[in-house]
């Protein structure tokens, strides 16, 4: 039976590890050399304002509710529709001739079925919103 004695060179690091540590230290030194007080000031200021903004946003009931609503698939489709509508409306407006004005022009505009559909949508939203506002005020929220 033989007894093994631990060797004196049983270091937890090998040459590769030490080389990496040296490289890491060089990286930290170079970052320190490259930074200035002014940079630190700007970064810290942005972080501070960013954290404060994030705090306000995450504790704002209105925004939290809005985010919850936006998460619903039908509302995501609504946002897609809305952004498509804005894009298309912008293009149509660019090519459409200017309106003549006057009552005649207005009558011509609202006799368009598409415009009537749009007005109906706005009326639905308005009705729901006024109901919701009435409820909020009734409960004193």
């Amino acid at each position, binding site marked *: 039976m033989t007894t093994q004695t631990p060797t004196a060179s049983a270091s937890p690091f090998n040459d590769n590890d030490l080389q990496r540590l040296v490289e890491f230290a060089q990286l930290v030194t170079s970052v320190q050399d490259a*930074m200035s*007080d002014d940079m*630190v*000031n700007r*970064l*810290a200021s942005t972080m*501070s304002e960013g954290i*404060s903004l994030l705090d306000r946003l995450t504790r704002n009931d209105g925004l939290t509710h809005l985010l919850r609503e936006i998460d619903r698939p039908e509302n995501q489709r609504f946002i897609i529709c809305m952004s498509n509508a804005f894009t298309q409306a912008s293009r149509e407006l660019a090519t459409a001739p200017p309106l003549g004005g006057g009552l005649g022009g207005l009558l011509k505009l609202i006799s368009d079925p598409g415009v009537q559909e749009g007005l109906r949508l706005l009326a639905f939203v308005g009705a729901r919103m006024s109901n919701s506002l009435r409820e909020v005020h009734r409960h004193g929220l």
Partner: protein
Amino acid sequence: MRILVVGGGTAGTIVANNLSRRLTGEIRAGKVRITMLSASDRHMYQPGLLYVAFGQMTPDQLYRDQASLLEPTIEFHVDPVKQFLLDKKQVKTESGKTHEYDILVIATGSRMVPEETPGMTEGAEFFYTEASAVKMYKKLREFKGGRVMVAVGVPHKCPIAPVEVMFSLDDFFKARGIRDKVQLKYHYPIGRLHTIENVAKWAKPEFERIGVDTETLFNIKEIDAKNKIMKSEEGTEVEYDLLIVIPAHRGMEVIERDNLGSGGWIPTDRYSLKMNGHDDVYVVGDTTNLPVSKTGSAAHFQAEAICENIASIIKIGEPVRDYDGKVYCFIEAGHEKATYAMFNYLNPPDLKPPSKPMHWFKISYNHMYWTSVRGLL
């Protein structure tokens, strides 16, 4: 439950915001109301004044609108307190209004009183107000060389400031290329270089390294501004070309006037932070008579303990913790390096060698302060 916070400095603002966050449900349900009375509609980052005095910050960087720092549920009035009527659970304000409370938090802070030392206002520079910090910077810019004497009055706000001034002076004159023409000397009122023993031990070799002469047991008696001589209570005299002092401080006048505490410092229980003899009155920050530093950091840790206790008293009827005397002070060791001192009632600070990353931490904190007073950090 009506909670009245008197004072809109670091301590008062953290208390009001922290309570508002902890008691959101109770406030919405109309069970709790938080009111703050402040002397100003602006909030100043006071540690920044040292940077103004050395041209590292401009005064506009030190201010924010107080209302912008407060939670929207806090009722805020710019209306300083004229009289405390603790027996009636009321305070009267300068505008003539009377505010009643169930819990009162006094955070009125402190003020320097250079006018109490003969000749100090005319003969010395200091940096505890915006105007005096700007004036000190201009004097330093004009200075061509000679004897710069630094002396310290007691008690004073920010106990680390005298040490930081010495390092800043050394770096400032080095940067201007006239360090060899300037003699720097530091005078301290007790028998060592700083009131905190480990800071004194740390400062001694550091001062020797940067060539700062020192004299202890030097209490400023008067300043002969005409002949540029500073005299001490101990009978010594020093001549100067530029004199920088840390003036003695007092609590606010209303505290003294209403006999709430000698020197404007209110006798406060060191653990519960309640005013002695008043179960419904808490004292926080510089206003206490506690044997801890008068710093924003002490105010911050005190505010946390007070808020946790007030909230738990409202919610479960009992306080849940004591203030342990915790203070965390950055120490700027010049314009490039810094270290820190952290201590409490039981454990003295153990100072580490100054480093660049600690300096960056400190200047980062100059911005993070606003996150801190909003009750986030």
